[in-house]
């Protein structure tokens, strides 16, 4: 999970071109694995999973004209299913918007920026099961930084980033932060 970052802090490990290439590759992987765009639903997890899901949907549509972002793209807020609600001040609730046809018997691809402890995805899976019964759930992340606390893995990863648990990984996106970058800061300091 990334925090709102002050620009120019930390070491840049991915630049705008790297982010773009990673998303293009993930889009192809998703289509290859799904054998086309049939029955796909792409759900972004707010905050930064959302713009990533939108970009991914754009690429899916350009590769596979059968993919329609209007009916196959949505967002999934997980705030109400978190396991750490009473460890922090109250969090604002994000937006959940599902395609009108729902997620029953679809292949849902969850999209998030950073995979870390796995707890966000655990909450997302719980939230999904309240919304319907997908045929399969897959996970696409821009960065996998390791240090899992739950038995969860990603199916599509933009970049595997070995980190120390004390380091901080920040994903910045054009839509939310003004530019595309992945930064690492902190560590032994």
């Amino acid at each position, binding site marked *: 999970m990334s925090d709102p970052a002050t620009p120019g802090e930390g070491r840049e490990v991915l630049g705008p071109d790297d982010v773009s290439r990673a998303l293009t590759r993930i889009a192809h992987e998703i289509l290859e694995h799904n054998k086309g765009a049939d029955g796909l639903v792409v759900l972004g997890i707010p905050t930064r999973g959302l713009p990533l899901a939108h970009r991914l949907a754009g690429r899916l549509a350009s590769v596979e004209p059968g993919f329609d972002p209007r009916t196959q793209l949505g967002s999934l807020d997980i705030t109400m299913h978190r396991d750490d*609600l009473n460890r922090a001040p109250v969090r604002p609730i994000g937006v959940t918007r599902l395609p009108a046809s729902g997620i029953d018997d679809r292949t849902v691809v969850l999209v998030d920026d950073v995979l870390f402890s796995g707890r966000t995805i655990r909450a997302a899976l719980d939230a999904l099961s309240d919304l319907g019964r997908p045929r399969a759930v897959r996970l696409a992340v821009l960065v996998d930084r390791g240090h899992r606390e739950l038995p969860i893995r990603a199916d599509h990863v933009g970049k595997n980033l070995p980190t120390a648990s004390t380091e901080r990984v920040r994903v910045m996106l054009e839509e939310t932060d003004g530019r595309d970058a992945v930064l690492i800061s902190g560590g032994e300091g």
Partner: protein
Amino acid sequence: MKHLLSAADLDRDAAVRILDTAAELAATQGREIKKLPTLRGRTVVNLFFEDSTRTRISFETAAKRLSADVINFAAKGSSVSKGESLKDTALTLQAMGADAVVIRHQASGAPHLLANSGWVQAAVVNAGDGTHQHPTQALLDAYTLRRHLVGPQPAGQDLAGLRVAVVGDVLHSRVARSNVDLLHTLGARVTLVAPPTLLPVGVEAWPCDVSYHLDEVLEQGPDAVMMLRVQRERMSSAGGGFFPGPLEYSRRYGLDARRLAVLPSHAIVMHPGPMNRGLEISAEAADSPQAVIVEQVANGVAVRMAVLYLLLAGGRREDVA
């Protein structure tokens, strides 16, 4: 936000935050599985010293939809009165480990006493005290107004520029007081309409306009008309005398088909319920397409879920209003 005692305690940002949270929670209430796990393990006590069906059921539904445990404590018929016995009740609730106490009391100020006495650690939500405040009703009214009258993207917005007429028994109405406070905070212009006998002393100091003539106010084309219930149970002493009779009241201050036709087509008709059909509102008005009275009930659940979420979901002892 540690407690919710009065609509006047909310500033604009806090109120908009509650409305935005309610909007997202309302979306979850259209699903097949309406229950969310968010407040699992928390206990909400409904402490009702006064008759109420819809508010109690609304709070109970809201708490259950968030997976909190609900204990209903109806004090009706017992010899409970303010002071010692409220204290004893509070200490009992504290011993049972209540995380939130939703209190309705016939005495104005009882929730304030409960919240500030140190008897309970729980968050206190005022569900109506005497003729003082009923903040969640004002919030659900503001939510309903915003949903119908503010743009296609109401998130983050207040009620700036809306004109709302609040009509009827203002004297006995905590709904009117809470709405004047909250709607004013949110930028709406409120006009109270009532016979002089049903207006409280000092009303000219409230942040609103006052009129004795419903027809004049309706001709100015308000965006919403909120009809208040004539609270006859509070008028019994000394033969009432607030108005000559029901017929005269409904002729001068009731919303009927003729007055409904005067309203602009976008205007909505609201009522906090329960309605006295034929007294302050006619059946034509209550059942017209402009009436949003049933929707207010549904919005009440979402708004109360938002309040419970914001009070209980964060870390304890965290003051983040």
